C-alpha cells in the first residue's frame, strides 16, 4: 500500500475518533435518553382491590451516566416500591431494593416476573386483563416517565413471597 494512502487512512481514523467523541463531550446531561418499552402489569387473582400486583418492562438507558429507579406512583395503588428477588433464609423472597434499581449508562434492565419489578400494593382498583393503568416511574438522574397505557396481561400470581419489615404476605 503506498505511503500516501496510509497517511490519509491515519487522518481519517483520527477524524472518525474526534467525531465519535463529540456526543460524549457535549452530551453528559443532554444526549441520550431513558426509555421504557414492552411494559405491562400482571393481572391475576391477586390483582383485585386491596390486593397487589407488579409492573414489568424494559428500561433502556442510552445516556452517558447511570440512572436510578427509586420508586413510582399510580392512581391504581396505595403503595409503589421497587423490588428485587433475593435469597432470604434459603428461600427466594422479594424485598424493596435499598437505594433503588440502577440502570447503568448504555445498558438495559428488564423488570420481569421472578426478578426485579415495580411492586404495586394496596390496590385501589381491580387490575384487569386487557385494561390499562397509568404509572409514573420515579428516576434519579433523569426525568420521571409517565406510562399512560400499561396493559394488564394475564399471568399466574407467582410464587414470590414478600419480605418486609412491616408486613409479610404470601403472594
Amino acid at each position, binding site marked *: 500500500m503506498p505511503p500516501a494512502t496510509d497517511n490519509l487512512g491515519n487522518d481519517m481514523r483520527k477524524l472518525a475518533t474526534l467525531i465519535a467523541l463529540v456526543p460524549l463531550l457535549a452530551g453528559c446531561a443532554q444526549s441520550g435518553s431513558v426509555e421504557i418499552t414492552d411494559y*405491562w402489569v400482571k393481572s391475576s387473582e391477586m390483582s383485585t382491590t386491596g390486593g397487589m400486583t407488579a409492573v414489568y418492562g424494559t428500561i*433502556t438507558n442510552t445516556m452517558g451516566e447511570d440512572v436510578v429507579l427509586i420508586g413510582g406512583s399510580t392512581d391504581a395503588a396505595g403503595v409503589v416500591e421497587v423490588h428485587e428477588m433475593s435469597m432470604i433464609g434459603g428461600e427466594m423472597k422479594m424485598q424493596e431494593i435499598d437505594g433503588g434499581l440502577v440502570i447503568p449508562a448504555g445498558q438495559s434492565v428488564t423488570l420481569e416476573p421472578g426478578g426485579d419489578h415495580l411492586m404495586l400494593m394496596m390496590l385501589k382498583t381491580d387490575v*384487569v386483563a*386487557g385494561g390499562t393503568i397509568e404509572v409514573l416511574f420515579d428516576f434519579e438522574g433523569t426525568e420521571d416517565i409517565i406510562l399512560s397505557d400499561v396493559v394488564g*396481561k394475564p399471568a399466574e400470581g407467582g410464587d414470590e413471597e414478600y419480605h418486609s419489615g412491616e408486613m409479610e404476605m404470601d403472594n
Partner: protein
Amino acid sequence: MISRRGLLGGTAAAAAAAGLAAGSAVTGAAASANQETFAAKRALEFYGPHQMGIEADLQAVTNFVVFDIKDTTDRAAMLRWMTLLTDDISRLASGEPILADPNPELAIGAARFSAYVGFGPSLFRKLGLESQMPSGFGPLPSFKVDQLQDQFSGGDVLIHIAADDPIVLSHGTRGLIRDSLPFASVRYSQSGFAHTPGMVPAGLTHRNLMGQVDGTANPKPGTEDFNEVVWIEDGPAWIQGGTQLVFRRIAMQLNTWDQLGTASKEEVIGRKLSNGAPLTGVNEEDAPDFAARHPNGLTVIPDFAHIRRASPQNVTDRMFRRPFSYEASPASDGTPDVGLLWTAYQRDMTKQFIPVQRRLDELDLLNEWTVPIGSAEFAIAGGIARGEIIAQALFS
C-alpha cells in the same frame, strides 16, 4: 420525559425491545444468516382491509381454537380481550414474542404465522348483539350426511392460527390461549396440516389424505372475483372487509376408500388423482366439460361425481375453500382417524355454502367416504389499521 411505546405502540419499538430484552439469545444464536432457513424469515402482513390468514397460501400447520365465553364476559370485556389478541397477533406475525411472554426464546421466526378472529351465532345471542350479525349468517341447517359431535361443533369465538413451523404454531397458540382465559374457556381445538413449504408449488391446494388434490377451482386471491365471492362490503361496520366462515371436520373412511381402484376413485370425484385435472381435461386449472360423453353414451364426469354436484349453478353460489388435513390417533385395530379441517369463506353462507351443500347432500357419491363430524359457523371481523382493535366497532 414521556415514553409512550406500549400496547399497539408500534412494532418497530417492540422489535427493538425484543432484541434487547428477550430475543438476544435467540437472534444471537441464529444471527448467522446461514443457519436461518427461508421459512423463518417469511412474514405475512397483519394490518390491512381484511384479517390475515385467509387470502394467503396454505401454511404447513394450523390450530382452530374455539372458545365459549364466561358468564361474566360482557361487551367491555370482549373489547379488552380483543385488545390483547390484537397486540399479540401483530407481534407473533412479525416473529416477535408477545408482551409478558414467559418463553420469548421460542419466538424464533415469523414462519408466515397468521391468526384471525371470528364469532359464532351463540356469541351474538349471549351479548344481545343479534342486530350486528351479517346478512345470511346463522346456525347451519342439518344435512342428511351429518354425524356431528359436540366436541367438534359450535362455539362462541374462533381464533384460527396457522404457521409454517409446528414450534412457532404451538408457541403462538399457547400465548393466544393464555390471554383468552380471563374471558373464556376452550371449547375445543382442532389441529391440522397441509404441506411443508417446498413440497408443492405455493398455493391453496394440497394433496388430502384420500390422495386428491384438494382446494381446486377456487377464486384466485388478489382478484376482483375473490373480493366478490369472499369479502363483505356492506352491513354493520365491524363486518365490512370481513367474511363468513363455515368450518367443518370431515372424517374420511380410508379403509373402504382404499379398496377402490384408481379409475373408480377418479370417477367419484370427477378429477384425475395424478394432477387434479378434470376427467375431461389435462391440467388442474382446466374447466370441467360436464356435457362430454364416452362413446357408450355415459357422461365422462358421472352424474354422482363430486365436482358436478359441487359446481356452481349460478354466479352467487361459489365460495373460497382453504382445506387443511387432520390426523388423530388410529383406533386399536389400526383404523385411521383422518380427514379434513374444511373451510369455506363467503359473503353470505345462506346464498353460497348452503345451496351447494344441499346439492351434495342429495347426491354425491363422495358422501360414502366422507362424513362431516364437526360443524361451526363464524363471522370473521374485517381487517384493522394500526391503532385499531379487532372487532372494535362490534364491542364498543
